[in-house]
């Protein structure tokens, strides 16, 4: 049995009166990729965003249930969300680099968290960019605007930015859906690489992608988890009709 990186227990999310996520319990193991799939509007993003308390920002959103990270229920009013979010990286559907230089995009977080030494920061920037397979392309223009990078490069930069503050968990919401096939392949490669060190939860609408990169897959429908199992099993031998209908493309 692997370590549990993150565990949701009876998690529900309401927007006003409307339930978007209903009573979801899922364990996400460390050093493994878990894919969340399901038709659009079924609550995947909502679920993912409650894991780092990002839904706190949305007026009217209410998250109930427990989220356990290392023996602590982080879905509690006592939780220091600022501290919590440092431990959980996040990558969005559309690349959202800061309007700063490539270097600053990476160095900004670590510097804020107390690393002032220029040498140390340089090191972190290089490591993070190498980790995100972006170093070779950017090392000669670290101080140019990050917005000048291509979409795929920007997305890798965003991944580098999140790992620079040393999280243990990375949440990704359709990180490749706005990218071309070549960039997508690079992101997938990168995820496979990062898996060795992080607990990764990724939302994807691309069945093949889920099959390629994840070890576990959770199939969401109408806010509930229909099926959760090893990815192989979900794609070769699903237990539910709805799952097999979805992965064979009969709806969604």
């Amino acid at each position, binding site marked *: 049995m692997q370590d549990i990186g993150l565990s949701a227990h009876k998690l529900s999310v309401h927007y006003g009166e409307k339930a978007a996520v209903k009573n979801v319990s899922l364990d996400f193991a460390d050093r493994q990729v878990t894919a969340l799939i399901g038709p659009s509007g079924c609550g995947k993003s909502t679920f993912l965003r409650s894991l780092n308390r990002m839904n706190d920002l949305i007026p009217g959103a209410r998250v109930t249930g427990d989220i356990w990270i290392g023996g602590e229920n982080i879905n509690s009013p006592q939780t220091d969300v600022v501290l919590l979010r*440092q431990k959980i990286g996040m990558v969005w559907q559309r690349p959202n680099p800061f309007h700063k230089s490539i270097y600053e995009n990476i160095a900004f977080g670590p510097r804020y968290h107390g690393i002032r030494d220029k040498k140390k920061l340089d090191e972190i920037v290089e490591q993070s960019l190498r980790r995100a397979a972006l170093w070779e392309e950017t090392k000669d223009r670290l101080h140019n605007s990050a917005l000048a990078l291509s979409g795929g490069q920007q997305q890798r930069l965003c991944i580098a930015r999140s790992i620079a503050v040393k999280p243990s968990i990375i949440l990704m919401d359709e990180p490749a859906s706005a990218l071309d096939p070549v960039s997508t392949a690079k992101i997938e490669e990168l995820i496979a690489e990062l898996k060795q060190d992080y607990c990764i939860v990724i939302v994807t609408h691309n069945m093949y992608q889920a099959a390629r990169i994840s070890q576990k897959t959770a199939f969401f429908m109408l806010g509930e988890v229909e099926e959760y199992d090893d990815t192989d099993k979900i794609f070769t031998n699903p237990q539910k009709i709805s799952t097999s209908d979805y992965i064979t493309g009969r709806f969604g």
Partner: protein
Amino acid sequence: MNAKTADKIATALIVTIAAIIILILAGLLGYILIRGVGHISFDFLTSPPETIRAGGGIGPQLFNSLFLLVLTMIITIPLGLGAGIYMSEYAKPGRGTDFIRLVVEVLSSFPSIVVGLFGLLVIVNLFGFGFSLFSGALALTVFNLPLMVRITEQGLKSVPREQKEAGLALGLSKWKTIRSIMLPIAIPVILTGTILAAGRVFGEAAALLFTAGMSSPRLDFSDWNPLSPFSPLNPFRPAETLAVHIWKINSEGLAPDAPEIAAGASAVLIITVLLFNMIARWFGRYVHRKFTATK
């Protein structure tokens, strides 16, 4: 009538209305500029006015207008930024904030003469600041502040939500995220709005009649000590601004060349306000390009 004809008629109508508006505007501008520009000279812009003789200038008034603008902005910008950030990022949506927003809207649409009278009663008399630049600046703040709050709110609202989330997801505090991630992106919008607001302050007259006053002491432009009574920099002296000056010489000017002076001063005023607008646009575009383009 078929859709095509209707479309043609509607288009023609809209084009005509637009043309009429542009013509009126151009006519107005042209009239003021043509009448006034000939009178503008370096001497006109720098020398003090004359009461009964011809040949007076608008030097002190121009200076007063600019100085008042700076004073107003020194008061408005920090307050407006603070309140705007609070309203957009901290205030919980609800009846309280809706009420504040309503007050802000009402304040910004107050007739300026009413603000002037309010300034006379409260700032000039009750608080005892007298007719002074400072009183004028406070009066202008009354309707400039709401504008500034709205501009700041708009600026922050224009920042993509993912930028804010990216900051928070890195474990930055809310304030740090606002200050270092959101504000830099919002600055072009905020600055453009601020410059436009400044143009409005510059042309204001009614609110200043009873607050900054309708006369200036004989300014001594060699004395830059803000505390001495004849120093141009003294914020507690009365000060007639350019717009007020235009109003005054038009209604009670005794100098034989009063109409020409009024025309020249109007042209200067218009040109300055136009400049503010152009700078605002140019600046907005420049910063936008700088932030989003390749270099």
